[in-house]
């Protein structure tokens, strides 16, 4: 596995339940360097209070707690209280009994004790990545919508049409006439836009009615997005 970009963790709050105080304390001191906020707790009861009062993005819980069971707590959260928070469980045993429960509960991952901190961070990263990406996409979409509000609406429509009709090899197989038949746009506008794109190396004419869309030639929008999908 590649080295993950753990920076995305910095935007999330983590709830950590572990009944062994020493382990809780030391693990928390490590995790606090990576996440926005960590809520370490010894019991499920305290954990619930935290969830109700704070934003919790991910739960990390031990299965074997004193007089309690982490899986049972997660079940209660999900099915009785309606919280849908991604979770990772830690366990001292490779207990199939609990494992099946965990799978049924769609627990995102499980970590066998003793905890390897790198594995734990990676696991947390993997669980949080889709959420981070979703956030990013939403951001981009909003950006496009903002841009289209202040620039020529026809050009935005043309971009949409091209991206929508790319085939698997990033080829665009339409003539100007085809385009004009489909969207309401004048021929000079189309010609001017295509020229602009080919000047920047984004759209290259291969032959008549066949253009290659070069993704890599797109300019950096100034914001980094982790693109490791």
């Amino acid at each position, binding site marked *: 596995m590649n080295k993950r970009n753990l920076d995305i963790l910095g935007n999330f709050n983590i709830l950590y339940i572990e009944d062994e105080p*020493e382990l809780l304390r030391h693990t928390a*001191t*490590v995790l606090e360097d990576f996440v926005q906020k960590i809520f370490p707790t010894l019991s499920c009861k305290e954990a619930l209070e935290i969830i109700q009062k704070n934003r919790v993005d991910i739960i990390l819980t031990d299965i074997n707690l004193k007089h309690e069971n982490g899986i049972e707590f997660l079940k209660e959260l999900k099915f009785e209280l309606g919280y849908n928070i991604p979770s990772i469980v830690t366990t001292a045993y490779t207990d199939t009994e609990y494992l099946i429960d965990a799978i049924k509960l769609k627990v995102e991952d499980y970590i066998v004790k003793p905890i390897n901190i790198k594995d734990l961070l990676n696991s947390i990263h993997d669980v949080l990545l889709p959420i981070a990406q979703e956030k990013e996409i939403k951001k981009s979409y909003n950006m496009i919508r903002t841009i289209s509000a202040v620039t020529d609406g026809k050009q935005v429509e043309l971009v949409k049409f091209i991206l929508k009709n790319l085939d698997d090899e990033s080829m665009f197989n339409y003539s100007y006439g085809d385009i004009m038949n489909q969207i309401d746009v004048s021929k000079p506008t189309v010609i001017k836009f295509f020229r602009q794109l080919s000047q920047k190396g984004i759209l290259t004419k291969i032959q008549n009615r066949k253009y290659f869309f070069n993704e890599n030639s797109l300019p950096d929008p100034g914001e980094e997005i982790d693109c490791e999908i």
Partner: protein
Amino acid sequence: MKDFFKYANKKLENVKFANKTKILIFTIFGGTILIGFLMFISIFALKYDFEALFVNLTKPQVKLEEIKDIYQVNIKETLSAIKENQISKAEGIEVLSLAEQIIKKQWREYKAEENEKIGGLPEFASNWLNFFLLQRDKTQKTVFEQRIIQNIEKKIKSINKKTQVIISLLNTKKSIKNKKIINDTILETNSINIYLSTLITNNLMHAISKKEANDRLFNTSTMMLVFLISLSFIFIILVSITIINNFKELHYSLEENIDKKTKELRALNISLESRISKEVENSRKKDSIMFQQARLASMGEVLQNIAHQWRQPLGTLMMIIQSFQSKYEVGKLNENFLNQSVDDALKIGQNMSDTLDDFKNFFMPNRAKQTFDVKKAIEKSISLSKYQLEKDEIKLDFMPSKAIKTYGFKNELIHVVLNLINNSKDILLSRPNIGEKKILIILKQTKQKIIINVIDNGGGVKNDIITKIFDPYFTTKHKSIGTGIGLYMAKQLVERHMLGKIYCKNIKYKFGKKEFYDSAMFSVELPIEGTTS
């Protein structure tokens, strides 16, 4: 002779002892009876013969002599006197007719006596013996004798007739004519006397011959008796010897048998002794193997505890180590963090080391006796099983008295209590619907003894097995958890090493609540002075 004994012995081998005695007694008895019988027969036969000789042959002779005398004296001489006229007629008639009468009577009597039967047992005996000895009866009258008798009877009649004539003649007093008839009669009298003499002689001859026969009979029966007596003697002796011989043989064989059996018994005894000592050895070995097994079993349980007690701090230690790297990578590895973490790690390490020491002390016991605190020992047992109890959500309470010092093997007591706790734990886990699971350990001290009670609300020991739970290998548990050694070993340790007692009772106990629980109470009683003596 030897062959005969051999043969007899062989035959007698299968005969019962009692039957052998019966045979012997029967033989003696039979022989005696036979001899006695023969003696009686012979005596009776002799008596018969004697009587026959006397009654039939001797007594009648007297009659014949009398008849002869009467003819000679009364008739012949009277007739002569009549002829000579020496007596009167009347006298003559009287004498003659008297003589006739006497003769008739005597003859009758003679015949009767001669044919008189003796009868009864003697005759029967004689006949039987004669038949037996093949002797014919010689008393039959010979032809000669019969003819004499006929002649005598004829003569008697004719003399009688003539006498009658003479008497009538005398009555008529014709004396001359009488002379001739008287002479005739005298002649006839002579001739009858000759006949009579002949008969007497004949009879005497007969008697002699009869006596001879009698002698023979006597000889024969004597011989016979001697023969029979000696025969039955020989037979009795033979049988006796045979049987005695057989007895001897039997005795020898019995003696031999007894000797053999004694030897066998002795051998068996010796082999038994060696077998017993072997078995004792075996059982000792078995015991020590069982102790080993039990130790291993509880070692397994304790090991699980240790493992868990180790796993947690180990995880923390590993986390601390990783935290150094992690802090370093994010540039936050400062002196403060370093000191704090190292302190924590050392504390945890020390703890782990202590746990290990506990374990080591428990399983590598120094076999030396020591003075120790019973309360502390029980606390150690509890701490060794703490993890399991916590995991299985069993609440264990310990109600100790003050510290109680005793002298003995500390580890063994820890072991015993640990076993009792484990048994309680097992029974509580086997009852899912029991509600709150509780174990209570009470330690108290009386004047004579220290008492440790382990009580659980697992429902108690079933009555049908309560007498067996201290037996080796008795278990009601699945073989993955039960060995059946725990209580057996606890009993051995308590009774043999600690000189105490261990027993179990089913009781109702409150556990500090309102309701009563069916509970098992295992009690260990230890002498207060320990095992110093």
